[in-house]
């Protein structure tokens, strides 16, 4: 009886594992995954990882390990990933610390990935799974998955093949996957081929987590629907801060130096955030019990890193490869003590913007309503400084003045655009003796 039981159990487990392996091979398309390569490199580093960077896409696009290697005179590793939230960063620190004697950890703290709700209420879990799929089986992976969502998503988190079950009925996709997985590149965990976007920019995974993008910001006048969204740091959920403190506690226990940082973003992106400094105060207050500092690289002086130079950014959030190389040098030099803070940074955002000449970025495109779209001018003197005139030219040529300099609301720069129309918006900013202008193309029709 026991012999029969043993045969059955052994055969059952073997069948499950073999079937699982086959299904994983045919159903899961990770041939273009960056995190698969990154975590493979983390699990098989060329040397002991001394310095670790964790964080969101702001991290993986901004830290060039070959530069930080020489800057820190150490072996550095960029463990950032797309939309990596703080529990993901904790998992990455634990993963790296398990097999490396880390000396220093840098935690990127972009406000955009800080959640307003508990981890367990998450429904979008791609940012979780791109890490968990490649973590080594063990307590770290289990803890990450169990706490990252409600139990409804446990199976999907544990088994990538479950998320891709529909592929069972798409044989052409299976064929493509098998073809891609049979290549030497895939089998050797080499970086996938560069991705070319519609605008011609090229993105490529280089090494140790760094992803280079050679795109540049093309429009200086622009619509952006996030510039003036407040950060609301008090609404960031306690789970986020708990994860951050867990990282710092782990570092403290293991004698690892921990530092927090913000990567440079275009000035336009943060100029409209009225509570940007409040966010940093919140971060500092949450980590007050730990010996860790937050350094904001958005306060870099223009002669070091120009937040208005479109050649340094690939989009309104991320620096490109050129910007990453400059930033990595500066970061390394600063943390190595080679450049004092006063030479690098402004005191705060207000000082930085005040030191600049007036700039008209474009306009914040508000959410649609029955009345229209409530928009707001975006510039580097958001609170006071001048008046605005906004002229709407409809597709047929009819012009309407939506806001004029002598209107009571002009200094706030708010105006209402019609729904379902197409045309041009000319914004004129009168400030002191200067008049700046920008033309934006508006299309709410197509």
């Amino acid at each position, binding site marked *: 009886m026991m012999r029969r*039981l043993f045969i*059955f*159990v052994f*055969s059952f487990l073997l069948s499950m594992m073999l079937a699982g392996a086959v299904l994983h091979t045919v159903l899961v398309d990770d041939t273009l995954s960056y995190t698969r390569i990154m975590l493979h490199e983390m699990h098989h580093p060329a040397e002991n990882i001394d310095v670790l960077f964790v964080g969101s896409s702001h991290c993986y696009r901004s830290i060039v390990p070959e530069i930080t290697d020489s800057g820190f005179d150490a072996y550095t590793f960029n463990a950032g990933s797309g939309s990596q939230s703080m529990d993901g960063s904790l998992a990455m620190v634990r993963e790296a610390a398990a097999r490396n004697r880390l000396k220093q950890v840098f935690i990127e703290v972009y406000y955009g990935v800080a959640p307003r709700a508990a981890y367990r209420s998450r429904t979008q879990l791609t940012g979780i799974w791109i890490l968990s799929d490649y973590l080594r089986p063990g307590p770290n992976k289990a803890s990450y998955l169990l706490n990252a969502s409600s*139990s*409804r998503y446990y199976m*999907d988190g544990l088994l990538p093949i*479950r998320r891709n079950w529909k592929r069972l009925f798409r044989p052409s996709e299976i064929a493509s996957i098998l073809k891609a997985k049979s290549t030497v590149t895939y089998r050797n965990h080499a970086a996938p081929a560069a991705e070319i976007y519609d605008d011609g920019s090229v993105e490529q995974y280089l090494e140790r987590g760094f992803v280079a993008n050679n795109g540049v910001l093309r429009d200086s006048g622009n619509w952006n629907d996030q510039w003036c969204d407040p950060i609301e740091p008090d609404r960031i959920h306690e789970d986020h801060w708990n994860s951050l403190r867990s990282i710092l506690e782990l570092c403290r226990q293991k004698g690892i130096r921990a530092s927090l940082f913000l990567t440079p973003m275009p000035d336009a992106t943060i100029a409209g955030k009225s509570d940007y400094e409040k966010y940093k105060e919140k971060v500092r207050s949450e980590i007050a019990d730990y010996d860790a500092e937050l350094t904001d690289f958005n306060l870099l002086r223009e002669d070091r890193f120009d937040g208005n130079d479109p050649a340094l950014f690939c989009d309104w959030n991320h620096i490109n490869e050129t910007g990453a190389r400059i930033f990595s040098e500066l970061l390394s030099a600063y943390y190595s003590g080679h450049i004092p803070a006063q030479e690098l940074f402004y005191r705060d955002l207000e000082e930085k913007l005040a030191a600049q000449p007036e700039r008209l970025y474009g306009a914040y495109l508000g959410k649609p309503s029955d009345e229209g779209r409530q928009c707001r001018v975006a510039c580097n003197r958001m609170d006071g400084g001048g008046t605005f005139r906004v002229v709407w030219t409809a597709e047929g040529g009819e012009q309407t003045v939506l806001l004029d300099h002598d209107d009571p609301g002009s200094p706030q720069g708010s105006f209402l655009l019609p729904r379902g129309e197409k045309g041009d918006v000319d914004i004129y900013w009168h400030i002191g003796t200067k008049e700046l202008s920008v033309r934006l193309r508006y299309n709410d029709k197509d």
Partner: protein
Amino acid sequence: MSFNSYEFALFFPVVVLISYLVPGRLRTFWLLISSYFFYMSWNPRYALLIALSTLITWGAALVIGRLPDTSVRARRGVLLITLAANLGILFVFKYANFTLASVESVLTALGIRCHSVRLDVLLPVGISFYTFQALSYIMDVYRGTITPEKDLLRYALFVSFFPQLVAGPIERSGRLLPQLDRLAGRSRAELWDAGRVMEGLLLMLWGLFMKLTIADRVSPLVRNVYENYHEMGAVEIAVAAVLFSLQIYCDFGGYTCIARGAARVLGIELMQNFRQPYFARGIRDFWRRWHISLTSWFTDYLYIPLGGNRRGALRRYLNILIVFGLSGLWHGASWNYVIWGLLHAFFQITEDLFTRKTRKSVHIPDLFRIIGTFAVVTVAWIFFAADSCGSAIGILGQCFRAFHMKELCSLGLDTSAWAALGICTALLLLVDLIHEKGMSVFAGFRRIALPLQALMSAALLWTVILLGAYGGSYDASFIYFRF
């Protein structure tokens, strides 16, 4: 704690392991506290009601057992008080608000103004099931078919045995109590039967297959069509109706398989509750195959005491109407369930009349009888699935009003989901067909080589894992838990 939850996946192995390790009498105690823990995971206060029902029926059975057979009035009195008490509890928690709402509707229709009164009560999960199980016990004691159970722990376990507590099968004391008695007396070596355990686990897996890959897969489409029936055409409604027939069978049948499988692992055989119901060749045959435990309960404790078919055709038809009307009401405190039950009564009466008239003259091939039965059952299910009688009538009416057709993949299932559903339904049909032919899938399974058994089990498990409709976007609760 539902059978298809992670909590149950942790709970069940622990219960089994400790049940195997502890000695006899402790086993009964262990299973009892496990059952109460299982039940209280829904709401701890539910335990009070089931405990009350248990104590009332246990105590009453002992009293009846002590009374001499000649004390007919006293015995009947105790029985009636017990029935009243248990049915009273059921009435308060399940039917009070329905009754109050119905009376209010009638008074309003008569032009009499009245205050709207409702009780603030939650419907305890499984109350309909365990109440009927306890009542069957007291009635069996009254009839003298069984002797009263003196052991309170064993009796309490009979009422609350967790595999069948919340959605049946409604076991008879004559079947379950002796098994619980024998279970307490079995040694660990006797209890540990690898073949029985594997069969039990396989049965549970099959139940999960039915529930997750079929019932839960079709649920979004059925819900979408029935909730938006005004926008649907006859084809969509027909598709949803057929799929609901499949859904409720796989939901309830799946639950029963899990219940029976779990009980089998623990060493208990629960009765079969479904026997390929959609292969029925008539309504009467359908009710010999569907929710067998409830059908036999109503037959033994209501239909036959009312006279059954011993008092002429008219009385028989009246009895059928009463039994099915009450059966509908048992399913839910709402008029659409009563109508559902009465529809079945109507179908059965019609079938009986037709059979009497055409006994020797018309031969209808089995396939047509099967399809015909499935069709009428499916139509009746519309009343079961709808929110109200009005909705059910509206849904049926829409079939005669609207003949446009939406794309099937826009109703709630995409191409892949339809494909998965097709494959799983085909497998279910195959298994049911094998059973319908009198063969046993289990018996055949046992005859094949162990590695092949293991491979097929693994294939079934992977099918459930991959093709099961569970996760963030699915409502995974069992339909019959609402009763």
